[in-house]
């Protein structure tokens, strides 16, 4: 049961049940949709960029506890961050959930660290990273729908 408890930490369950920033952002100037055909998870990310800074960010969609909590905590974390900081966080987050501890600099992860248990469940990595991939597409501005497959 230990690895299950590591995966479904209280913070993840909480954000999965009551996602933050779960709404359409009227003033968004960047959006993208992400999709996981394997399980049917869908997410739409809305970003309002002010110059190089994420002024506001929100999401809509449906998914499992891991993907919903990941999107929720991502939006909380990224408010006020620059684009470069967001990119760097994604890199670190990706190393965390794929278990690449050697490369990991967890110092800046904050709440995102609750996703460390995902590395024991390789099949769930896509759930945790869907919103991040979608964010990247939104920031790159190509607006192409993202698919995990």
């Amino acid at each position, binding site marked *: 049961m230990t690895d*299950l408890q590591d995966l*479904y930490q209280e913070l993840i*369950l909480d954000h999965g*049940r009551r996602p933050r920033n779960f709404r359409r952002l009227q003033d968004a100037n960047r959006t993208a949709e992400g999709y996981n055909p394997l*399980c*049917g*998870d869908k997410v739409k990310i809305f970003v309002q960029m002010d110059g190089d800074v994420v002024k506001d960010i929100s999401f809509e969609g*449906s998914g*499992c506890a891991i993907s919903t909590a990941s999107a929720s905590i991502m939006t909380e974390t990224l408010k006020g961050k620059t684009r470069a900081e967001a990119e760097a966080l994604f890199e670190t987050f990706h190393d965390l959930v794929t278990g690449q501890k050697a490369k990991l600099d967890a110092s800046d992860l904050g709440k995102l660290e609750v996703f460390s248990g995902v590395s024991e469940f390789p099949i769930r990595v896509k*759930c945790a990273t869907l919103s991040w991939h979608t964010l990247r597409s939104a920031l790159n501005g190509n607006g192409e729908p993202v698919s995990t497959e």
Partner: protein
Amino acid sequence: MKATSEVLADRAADAVSFDVQAIREDFPILRQEVHGKPLIYLDNAATSQKPASVLEATTRYYSSDNSNIHRGVHVLSQRATEQYEEARVKSQRFINAAGSEEIIFTRGTTEAINLVANSFGRSRVAAGDEVLITTMEHHSNIVPWQILCEEKGARLRVAPINDEGELILEEFEKLLNERTRIVSLVHISNALGTINPLRRVIESAHRVGAAVMVDGAQAAPHTRINVQELDCDFYAFSGHKVYGPTGIGVLYGKARLLDAMPPYQGGGDMISSVTFEKTTYNTLPYKFEAGTPNIAGTIGLGAAIDYVNQLGLEKMAAHEHELLTYGAELLTGIPGLRLIGTAKEKAAVLSFVLEGVHPHDVGTILDREGIAIRTGHHCTMPLMDRFGIPATSRASLAFYNTKEEIDVLVAGIHKVKEVFSA
């Protein structure tokens, strides 16, 4: 809930007619632990497990008879050809086709449907014509027809289902008209377990002159198929869902239709003579079997059919039905759980949603209990939309499953609820 004594009596009666524990010995894969718990395999609608006799048949072919078929004069080729063609006759008898030339070996149900859409469909469907399917189709019985309709300027129509997951026959019949060229539908739904009333559907379709293709992927392992009695024009099933190997399937077609159809793929074995000016095609069934086929898989399918015949499909189905009734009753008793697919005529599929928990999370937690189920849209996204859900958790049963395993599933679902405080 039944009283314990009743449950025990049921089990005793069960044990006399159908010795599940002995049968499980035939399946080497079931003797293992997953995450330190005995494996409970409830993902049979995705693929079924293989008895030792099937594994032995394919190994025997590779270790003592391996060679190409229909072309060598040497003894190995003769042996391989014999076994390959024996499997065709076994398949013919398995679904009671009139002749073995009506049995075309394919990679599986998907390829069989694509063959019909490409060969029969392209020669029969024109602009303004219609192809009729149902809401409960697997993507493999939607997309080939979409491609065909797009190419031909034809219209793909979809017959609706009710909240129980049953085809609404009156609506289906209203959609039939003189432009309907092909009706293609599933015999047993993979996501819901619904058994479709094929006899009536086929009769109605024939009345307007439409040909009927049946996707029998889920039916072959669970029910006796009689294509002559059904009077369907095409019927397809997959080896791997009927306890045989992957990569082998069967397309049945009425000889008269297959004869008139153009080839699907060109290559070796499907010709009788080739010059650069003109090629004459081989006779049935070889016209539709271009290239070296999956010989080992075909022989394995033959062994799987032998196994099913030996055990008795009716007995297997009766045991599965008992498990289904038992499981449906227990699952329905779990607060917050809703079964998706509650048709009166139903095969051994328990598809469900759990309030407040996504199926993917259900699947991960059950996996830690050693229980393998499928979670997701089951390649039936339009069907999920019909029920307004993104996905379900699906436990699909086979004759080697037991009531004890269903008890563990139920305990596992309670554990899921505990983790999520749902």
